[in-house]
């Protein structure tokens, strides 16, 4: 047949006014709007479209849907290259560039097809034995060969230039699939008053009705009715790929290639849909037969042939052998005969429905009962088949072979939540098991292959689904649908053994022989079979192969199909690009940044910023040096000699109020708070219930019943939730309310000998004398139209003040302080210097409060010596925490001039071999300008004797001797901060 003879002049769902030019393997072809790539290729006489995964056998188009295992193509070039797309689902668009896969140097002459000759080398279990075998040497030997020879299409390694979106959606009723059952369900649910979302993976509404010319008028009427209903939305080109808890569906929507060139339009959109109820109207997939060379280009599913003839107006070829074990294949035969094809029917069953037989014969078909196809002749195209019947074998020449071995309901989604499919022998198929009461199945998905049954089941499922959402309006009878129907499978098709190169899984190249080999070697369970043979492991998830494999296994083991097992399915139903799930959350938008109210000033004043959790904080300011090591040391000198200002807005801030607020804090902090006077602040440490230190911070008593708590930046959210938990559960009797005010207040700290003078100049209304505002004192006032809280607290060990002001005036207050302070030498400093200053003072932070240390470990045991009734108390006394070798906080000082210490270094006794975990570890280090050497904090076994350790840092092969000293390196009496 010439290409022009293959396409009918009329009929089908095509817009013949839109001729689309596309290329396949570099050659240019034409198709129509409404074609898939597969349909357009068939119409152009292209039947060889790819090579198989393992044996590189020539392959054609098997199906007309998402189940396609053979016709996988790569679309696009460069950064837009996307591999493994089924040509049967690819909507033809102008300029589409598609290429075949697994071929070298060309599709017709493929060097790797010698794999077919060396069959045993890549026999079943080759991968399994190579990976799992006693020696991995085999893998080393074969790796190069496998990598070159096997594999599906190649993905691009370039950055993805396309835009994706992700969105959230809600509906009363979700209907998955828009065939007869889905349309009927959507209509009934909508008439009952529910909001309905109808989801169709195809670009055309209708499902199998698109292949039923007699259903066209009904389809048109239903579609029009649904499109006009305000409470119905229709998503085309959208695959429901996964079902999750709470009736959540994952959807992936392809852009409409005819929507016009909108630059920002997403190529694919991911939707997370929450539905009150779901109707699964996903239809059924036809199964192939298993016979020798059933994978040759030109061997197709009978239902697919019918789709190409009726929906796409393509006659793939004219001399057809229809092999079947199922009545539905006769409908394909009738449509082919009506188009002038020559048809031979090989019906595997001894009997067939008499009316079908009579009609087939009357239309001119030759029918052989109890006859199977035993072999297919031809390599790149079909030239004939060998038929085997009771009277022996006979060759029949043909150029197209159709096959039908029954139908598999598309129950993937229904099983994603763990509902096991159930085998129904009368239809020789698995159907969904008992679904939750908010989920319904209608039509082919539930095993009802007749279209009139699908319409009826859809209507009742739609009504029931609407009722789940509380919508029970009157539903009118659906228009009648008159259509020629068959009974479907009437006997169980059983693959016949003894056939060579009879493929069960086309995509993964698994044959009947392979399954027999697996069985001989003892891999009997389906799950073992899958791993041994790779059956069902392809991108098609074995949609066309699972049931045939089960049948083969059942027959080999002499058990029934359900005894052989079911396969459960996991999302996704079809491959989902990661980019679509990420949506716009890529690059800069991968995660949000939290910015302080003073952020803009920092970036305008040459701060190098650092990500601290989600926060952006100044790391150091270039005013003190252009690299961090110079800058932080200068910033430390600044704070110790004059004054520095630091943005501390990131601290967690919690407002605590109520008559029992003091009693509450007295419990949540390990050290006491009940005695704290109004207008005073106190450092506090919280434990977890298990006795480990949770967080530290300062809390200030603003009034008798009101406190202002600060937490570490990292634990802000956890501390708030923890306080809320205690108050909402065990301590409901405490009259206390807690509320986060972290974002309401900007915070800044001015530290250094000049700090009191600077603050006095900046806030002339407040008395900063030692008497009026002593260490740990509070002063309140106003700054512009914002409240102002100044708490005299020191983290650096210098006289220092924390200034809290309403967030909207944060930058103003900061600017005022910088302006006023300039005369005193005030400059900003960053977190690197902050961290170094606290090490000099022996203050613990995140590296020491690491979820493993207790108060005693951190040298704060005395804080709670006379206390009881606080969180974590009981378990902090457990035996393990009192062990003699418990690691405790120490100070460490490098005693090798010029040698630096490193955080994470392991600590050993001098002379001890540097092996294992050592006696402790270095937690924080810094260079100390005051001491002119490297110092650090560490955790060291309490039973360690001696005052010297060896700090080993194996990552850099560094070994440094250090002296064990008090963790407070500077001003142990605290004279500086008391001023």
């Amino acid at each position, binding site marked *: 047949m010439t290409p022009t003879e293959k396409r009918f002049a009329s009929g089908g769902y095509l817009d013949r006014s839109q001729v689309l030019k596309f290329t396949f393997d570099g050659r240019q072809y034409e198709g129509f709007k409404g074609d898939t790539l597969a349909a357009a290729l068939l119409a152009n006489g292209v039947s060889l479209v790819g090579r198989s995964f393992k044996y590189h056998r020539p392959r054609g188009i098997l199906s007309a849907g998402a189940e396609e295992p053979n016709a996988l193509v790569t679309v696009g070039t460069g950064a837009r290259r996307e591999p493994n797309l089924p040509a049967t689902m690819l909507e033809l668009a102008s300029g589409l560039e598609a290429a075949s896969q697994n071929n070298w140097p060309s599709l017709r002459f493929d060097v790797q097809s010698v794999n077919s000759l060396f069959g045993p080398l890549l026999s079943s279990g080759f991968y399994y034995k190579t990976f799992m075998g006693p020696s991995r040497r085999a893998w080393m030997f074969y790796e190069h060969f496998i990598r070159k020879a096997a594999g599906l299409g190649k993905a691009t390694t370039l950055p993805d230039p396309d835009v994706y979106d992700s969105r959230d959606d809600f509906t009363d009723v979700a209907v998955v699939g828009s065939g007869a059952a889905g349309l009927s369900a959507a209509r009934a649910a909508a008439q009952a008053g529910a909001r309905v979302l109808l989801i169709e993976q195809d670009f055309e509404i209708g499902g199998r009705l698109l292949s039923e010319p007699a259903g066209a008028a009904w389809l048109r009427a239903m579609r029009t009715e649904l499109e006009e209903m305000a409470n119905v939305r229709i998503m085309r080109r959208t695959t429901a790929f996964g079902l*999750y*808890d*709470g*009736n*959540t569906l994952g959807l992936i929507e392809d852009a409409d290639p005819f929507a016009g060139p909108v630059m920002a339009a997403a190529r694919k959109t991911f939707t*997370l849909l*929450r539905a009150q109820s779901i109707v699964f109207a996903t239809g059924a997939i036809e199964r192939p037969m298993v016979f020798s060379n059933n994978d040759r280009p030109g061997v197709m599913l009978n239902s697919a042939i019918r789709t190409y003839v009726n929906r796409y107006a393509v006659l793939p070829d004219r001399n057809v052998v229809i092999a079947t074990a199922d009545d539905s294949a006769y409908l394909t035969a009738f449509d082919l005969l009506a188009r002038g094809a020559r048809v031979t029917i090989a019906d595997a069953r001894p009997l067939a429905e008499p009316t079908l037989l009579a009609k087939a014969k009357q239309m001119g078909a030759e029918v052989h009962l109890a006859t199977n196809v035993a072999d297919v002749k031809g390599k790149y195209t079909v030239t004939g088949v060998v038929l085997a019947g009771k009277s022996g074998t006979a060759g029949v020449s043909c150029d197209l072979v159709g096959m039908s071995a029954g139908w598999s309901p598309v129950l993937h989604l229904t099983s994603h*939540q*763990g509902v096991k499919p159930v085998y129904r022998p009368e239809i020789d198929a698995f159907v969904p098991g008992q679904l*939750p009461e908010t989920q319904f199945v209608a039509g082919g998905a539930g095993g009802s292959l007749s279209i009139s049954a699908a319409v009826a089941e859809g209507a009742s499922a739609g009504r029931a689904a609407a009722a789940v959402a509380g919508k029970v309006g009157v539903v009118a009878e659906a228009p009648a649908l008159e259509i020629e129907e068959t009974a479907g499978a009437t006997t169980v098709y059983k693959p016949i053994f003894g056939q060579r190169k009879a493929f069960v899984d086309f995509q993964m190249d698994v044959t009947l022989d392979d399954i027999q080999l697996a069985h001989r070697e003892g891999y009997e369970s389906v799950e073992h079979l899958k791993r041994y043979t790779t059956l069902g492991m392809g991108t098609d998830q074995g949609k066309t192969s699972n049931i045939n494999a089960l049948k083969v296994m059942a027959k080999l083991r002499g058990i029934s199909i359900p005894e052989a097992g079911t396969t459960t399915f996991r999302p996704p139903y079809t491959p989902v690009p990661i980019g679509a799930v990420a949506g716009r959350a890529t690059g800069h938008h991968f995660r949000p940044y939290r910015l302080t109210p003073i952020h803009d000033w920092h970036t305008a004043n040459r701060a190098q910023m650092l990500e601290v959790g989600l926060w952006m904080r100044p790391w150091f300011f270039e005013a003190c040096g252009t690299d961090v090591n110079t800058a932080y040391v200068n910033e430390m000198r600044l704070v110790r000699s004059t004054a520095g200002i630091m943005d501390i807005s990131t601290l967690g801030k919690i407002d605590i109020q109520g008559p029992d607020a003091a009693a509450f804090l007295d*419990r949540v902090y390990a050290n006491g708070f009940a005695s704290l006077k109004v207008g005073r602040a106190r450092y506090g440490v919280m434990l977890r*219930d*298990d006795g480990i230190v949770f967080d530290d911070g300062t809390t200030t008593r603003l009034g008798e019943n009101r406190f202002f708590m600060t937490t570490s930046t990292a634990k802000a*959210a956890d501390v708030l*939730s923890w306080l*809320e*938990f205690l108050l*909402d*559960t*065990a*301590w*409901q009797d405490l009259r206390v309310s807690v509320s986060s005010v972290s974002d309401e207040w900007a915070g800044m700290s001015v530290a250094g000998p000049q700090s009191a003078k600077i603050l006095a100049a900046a806030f002339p209304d407040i008395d900063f004398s030692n008497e009026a505002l002593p260490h740990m004192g509070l002063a309140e006032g106003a700054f512009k139209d914002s409240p102002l809280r100044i708490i005299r607290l020191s983290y650096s060990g210098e006289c220092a003040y924390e200034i809290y002001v309403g967030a909207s005036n944060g930058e103003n207050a900061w600017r005022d302080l910088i302006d006023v302070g300039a005369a005193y030498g005030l400059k900003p400093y960053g977190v690197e210097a902050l961290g170094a200053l606290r090490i000099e003072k022996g203050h613990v932070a995140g590296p020491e409060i690491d979820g493993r240390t207790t108060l005693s470990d951190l040298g704060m045991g005395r804080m709670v010596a006379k206390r*009881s*009734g*606080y*969180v974590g*108390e*009981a*378990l902090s*006394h*457990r035996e393990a925490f009192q062990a003699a070798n418990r690691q405790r906080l120490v100070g460490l000082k490098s005693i090798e001039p010029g040698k630096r210490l490193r955080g994470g270094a392991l600590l050993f006794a001098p002379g001890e071999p540097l092996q294992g975990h050592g006696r402790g570890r270095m937690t924080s280090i810094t260079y100390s300008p005051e001491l002119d050497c490297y110092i650090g904090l560490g955790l060291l076994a309490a039973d360690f004797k001696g005052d010297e350790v060896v700090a080993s840092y194996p990552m850099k092969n560094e070994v440094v001797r250090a002296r064990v000293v008090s963790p407070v390196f500077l001003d142990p009496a605290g004279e500086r901060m008391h001023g």
Partner: protein
Amino acid sequence: MLRIDCPCCGVRDHSEFRYGGDATVERPAHDNPDLDSWYRYVYVRPNPKGLHREYWQHVLGCRQWLVVERDTVTHSIHSVSFSRRQRA
């Protein structure tokens, strides 16, 4: 996606909530010094199959701590209530 019907805010995705563990265990009194009581409260859990009462906090909503009755097999949620009402 679990869908939790917050008695304050309505049905929301579980991603708005923070999981808070077993709600069937009784927290010892704050001044109970008994090591064994605290050991059992902090560490000993039955891990039941079927209905289970657990704490969830609506952190991205009303911030209430809730008691959610969830089936550990099917993930279906049978009831949601304020933890404050549970015990008050």
